Each structure stands twice: as structure tokens, then as C-alpha cells.
């Protein structure tokens, strides 16, 4: 028999203290693990939104066609209500194309008839600048804003060439000098099934094309985004063939609804929305609205377009919004309007049927999707 070593009474942990210590350890372990899980979740699902803080483009640069002092202003900036769809704030949307001929500014009804102004509530700026498809930066819609922050556009130029009499390069200032900037409140429908209403600032593409004098043989207009993987790190990944390219038929390009936008909510276009200049074609799916344009070429042949090259059976050249022609993998009948609960019905040509329907008269929209 071995001697059991004597332990002094005082060295033995009293049972209740032992259990207390274990309880404490467990409580501590629980708290630490929950905190770790919560931080991991938060890191992967951040809730921070950036705000639209680019320089104002109005009123200094934009003649106020209606003489109203208030245009569509960023409701987030002044902390007022987030829905500013009432027409009183958007009356300066657009100017008549022949502004010189008629000195009286167009009435809201005239603007509505042209499609320059819709009455739907405008999407709050904080959503427009935090929910973007811009694969040149990242494929995460929520991540574009931070990935594109700091994208420098100083000294930006884009070249207009091809079948034109006056090929030339334009700075953004030169573009602005071509014709008065206009405000257009357009619906924007993404091919993914969500939509926004955005007050763009820009000029009609037709005014730029007029300036370079298209030749008779020019039947299409091709667009190209900047190719610079150092500034656009998403281009390091061959998700699409870079640079992003898009195209329009010349009659689509000349349509008054088609604009080159350089601003939104009366502020300069922020990087995540396509700074410094992007295309906006409101009756087509959003991917036609090519961003950060460096080249515009007039051609005789239908130009290649990025999404069509990637998946020709899913994305056509026309990409007109059409509730009756589904994407092969999802329905296009309804859309999630950002800021609303529940989905709304998608409209043919995104609600611009009256303005653009005739461009496609006699065309099979199922075939030419």
C-alpha cells in the first residue's frame, strides 16, 4: 500500500468554487465564441452605406430650364424625406430639344409625353450609389461603392471615331459645352429583375453624334469602357472579356431618350455609377448602359456586345425590356423596385413603348431579344 500524500485542507479547491470557476469559464467561452461569430458575420455582411458626396453639377453648370430653383436634389444630403417623387421637385427635368425655338420651358406634361420625366418616386440616392453592377470593380453589387472609391477621372477623354466626318476626342467639359445639360428622370430596369428611378443629368447622345457628323454608311454605334486593370481591379478576372463593349443601332442612338449621363441627383456621377460619363438607354436592360466610356465608334456592322459574347442565348444585342420574353433562367414579368416592398409588373420597353415602340415595328421581339 502506498502512502497517500497529505494535502493540506486549505489547498483543496472547495467544490462550489470549482463549479463556479467552470461556470465562469463556460460563460466566458460562450461570450467569446458568440462575439467571434457575430464579428465574422458582420465582416461578411456589412451594413455601412456610402453617401452620394460627389461635387454638385447644378445649378452652376446647368441652365435651369424651368426657372425653378429646386431640382431633383439628393434627399439624403439634407436629411429630408426619402421619397421625392412629387412633380414639383422634378419640373426641370429635361429641356426641349429645340430650346432655342421656344423660349417657354416645357411643361411637366410635355416632359412626361416625351418620356423625360416619370412620376414614380425617385429611388433614394443612398441606394443608387450602394447597389451597382460594375464588374470592372467587383461582382458584388454592394461592394462596388467601396471598390470604386478613389477612382480618378481627372483629364478624362473619350474618342469619337469611325464612320464620321469629324472624328475627335472630347473632355467632359467639351461634352458639356455641346448642348445644355438636361435632367431626365428615368426608370432603370436591370436584367436581374430589380429597378430604380434615377434623376440623371446629361446630354442627348444625338447632340454629340450631330457634332461629329455621321456618314451615310454609319448604321451602328459601338461603345467601349476604359481598360485599365490597375484602376479597375475587376478586370484582372476574366469574368467577361475586357474591355466592356456595348452597341446601339443608329436610330436607337439618335433617339431623344438616349443620353450620355455625367451626373445624378444634380451631382457629378460617382465612380460606382460610371464616372465620368456613361450611356443611359431607359427602355433597355441596364447592362446596355455602358459606364466610364473612353471610345465611341460609328460602324456599318452590328458591333459585338459584352454580355452577348458571354452568353448569346441569354443576352441579345437589343436587350429591350420585355415582360413577355423571359431570361432563360428567370422570369422578366415582374421586378423589385428598390425601396418598395413586393414586386411590380414590368412594362414593355420599360414603360417607354409610346416613345420607342415604332423603332421596332414589325420586328420579332422574341427572336431579337
Amino acid at each position, binding site marked *: 500500500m502506498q502512502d497517500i500524500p497529505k494535502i493540506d485542507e486549505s489547498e483543496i479547491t472547495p467544490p462550489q468554487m470549482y463549479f463556479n470557476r467552470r461556470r465562469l469559464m463556460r460563460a466566458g467561452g460562450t461570450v467569446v465564441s458568440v462575439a467571434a461569430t457575430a464579428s465574422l*458575420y458582420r465582416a461578411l455582411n456589412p451594413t455601412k452605406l456610402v453617401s452620394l458626396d460627389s461635387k454638385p453639377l447644378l445649378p452652376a453648370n446647368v441652365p435651369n430650364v424651368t426657372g425653378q430653383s429646386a431640382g431633383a436634389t439628393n434627399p439624403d444630403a439634407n436629411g429630408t424625406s426619402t421619397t421625392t417623387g412629387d412633380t414639383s421637385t422634378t419640373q426641370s427635368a429635361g429641356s426641349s430639344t429645340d430650346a432655342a425655338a421656344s423660349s417657354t420651358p416645357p411643361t411637366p406634361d410635355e416632359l412626361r409625353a416625351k418620356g423625360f420625366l416619370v412620376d414614380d418616386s425617385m429611388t433614394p440616392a443612398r441606394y443608387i450609389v450602394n447597389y451597382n453592377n460594375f464588374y470592372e470593380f467587383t461582382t458584388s453589387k454592394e461592394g462596388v461603392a467601396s471598390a470604386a472609391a478613389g477612382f480618378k477621372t481627372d483629364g478624362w477623354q473619350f474618342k469619337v471615331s469611325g464612320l464620321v466626318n469629324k472624328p475627335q476626342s472630347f473632355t467632359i467639359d467639351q461634352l458639356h459645352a455641346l448642348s445644355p445639360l438636361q435632367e431626365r428622370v428615368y426608370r432603370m430596369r436591370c436584367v436581374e429583375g430589380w429597378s430604380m428611378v434615377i434623376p440623371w443629368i446629361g446630354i442627348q447622345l444625338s447632340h454629340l453624334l450631330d457634332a461629329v457628323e455621321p456618314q451615310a454608311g454609319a448604321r451602328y454605334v459601338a461603345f467601349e469602357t476604359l481598360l485599365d486593370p490597375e484602376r479597375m481591379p475587376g478586370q484582372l478576372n476574366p*469574368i467577361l472579356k475586357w474591355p466592356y463593349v456595348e452597341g446601339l443601332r443608329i436610330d436607337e442612338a439618335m433617339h431623344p431618350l438616349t443620353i450620355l449621363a455625367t451626373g445624378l441627383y444634380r451631382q457629378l456621377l460617382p465612380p460606382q455609377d460610371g464616372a465620368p460619363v456613361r450611356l443611359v438607354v431607359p427602355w433597355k436592360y441596364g447592362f446596355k448602359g455602358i459606364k466610364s466610356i473612353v471610345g465611341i465608334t460609328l460602324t456599318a456592322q452590328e458591333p459585338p456586345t459584352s454580355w452577348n459574347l458571354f452568353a448569346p442565348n441569354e443576352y441579345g444585342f437589343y436587350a429591350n425590356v420585355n415582360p413577355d420574353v423571359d431570361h432563360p433562367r428567370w422570369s422578366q414579368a415582374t421586378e423589385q423596385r428598390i425601396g418598395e416592398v413586393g414586386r411590380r409588373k414590368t412594362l414593355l420597353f420599360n414603360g417607354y413603348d409610346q416613345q420607342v415602340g415604332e423603332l421596332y415595328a414589325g420586328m420579332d421581339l422574341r427572336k431579337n431579344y
Partner: protein
Amino acid sequence: MNQVQFYRWLVIINCAVPLVLLSWDAWRGQLGANPASDALHVTGMLSLVCLLLSLTITPLRWWTGWGGWISFRRALGVYAFVYAVIHLGIYVVFDRALSLSSTLMEISSRRFLQIGGLSLLLMVPLAVTSTNAMLRKVGAKRWKQLHRLAYVIAILAVMHYYMLVKSDVRQPLVFAGLLTGLLAVRVHRAYAPTRTPQRV
């Protein structure tokens, strides 16, 4: 409560943390521009992650030799099911406006939804038999056979994810790679010469 039981509770509590935060964000209107879509993505992702974690338990047990791992497996599997049910619920309520007919129409006409639906459907018998009482009732052997369905469920879930992505398939491919690894370990073990000498 012994130590393993305590760890199991830790797993159970921690798997609920994302759900609490997701609900909290939803309540405060902080799910961003497209809350329904965000919640759909988060719950789909959580379901898939829990599923893959449940499939790492057995290899972990082999490698570490610690039997305690096994007591986390059912909890992870049940969470995979719970998150998938919430995922479907969000789809029905917000994407299909609570219309059962439109949900069924849409699921039946889209291949990636059919596959996701099948994955969820196959989870049901596993969730139903996840209690101790059911395990005893079914019998350990048949229970084990039945729960091999988890492999099929995981493959279908990864396919569902891969097919819905527009062009950037890197993330679903990462999940496909992890799953392939988890399945390969099992195949390897099944066919590798046994380490213990065979009884004659």
C-alpha cells in the same frame, strides 16, 4: 452538463447568431437596397455553410481521433434545414408575393430552382429523423443509410448555387471544391486498404 454537451450548446447557440443578426438588420431596415434579395442570399449561403460543416465532422473525427465531434453533426444538419426553409419562405413571401401557384410555376420552370427544391425536399426526412427518439425508432443502421442522403443534398445545393450565378462562378466553384474534397476523403477511406489488420 458535461464538457461535450457544453460544446454542443456552443454550436447550437453560434449557429443561431447569424439568424439573430439577419433579423436585427431586417428590423432596422439595414439590409441595403434590396432587402429581400439580400436575405435570400444570406440564408442560402448559411444553409450551404451549415451543410458543408456537417460534412466535415466525420473527417475531423478521423483525423483528430476525438469522438466528441459527432455530437455537433445533427445540430449543424438541422440548422442547414432551418436556414433552407427560411430561404424558401423569403422566396415565397417576397419574390412570389405569397402566391403558391406562382411559386410552383416558377420552381417547375427553372432548372436551378428545381434542383434547389429537390435539395430541400431531401432534407425533410433527415430533419424529421433528427431526434434521438426517431434515431432509436429507425434503428442505427438504417438511420445511417438514410443520412447518406446528405451527400446528394450538398451536391444539389452547390449545383443550385452554381447555376444561378450570372457569370462570376468563383464562389460556387470554391464550394464545389470543398465539397469534392469532403467526398473524396470518404471515397479514399472506403477504398484504401484498411489500417487495422483484417480479421480472418
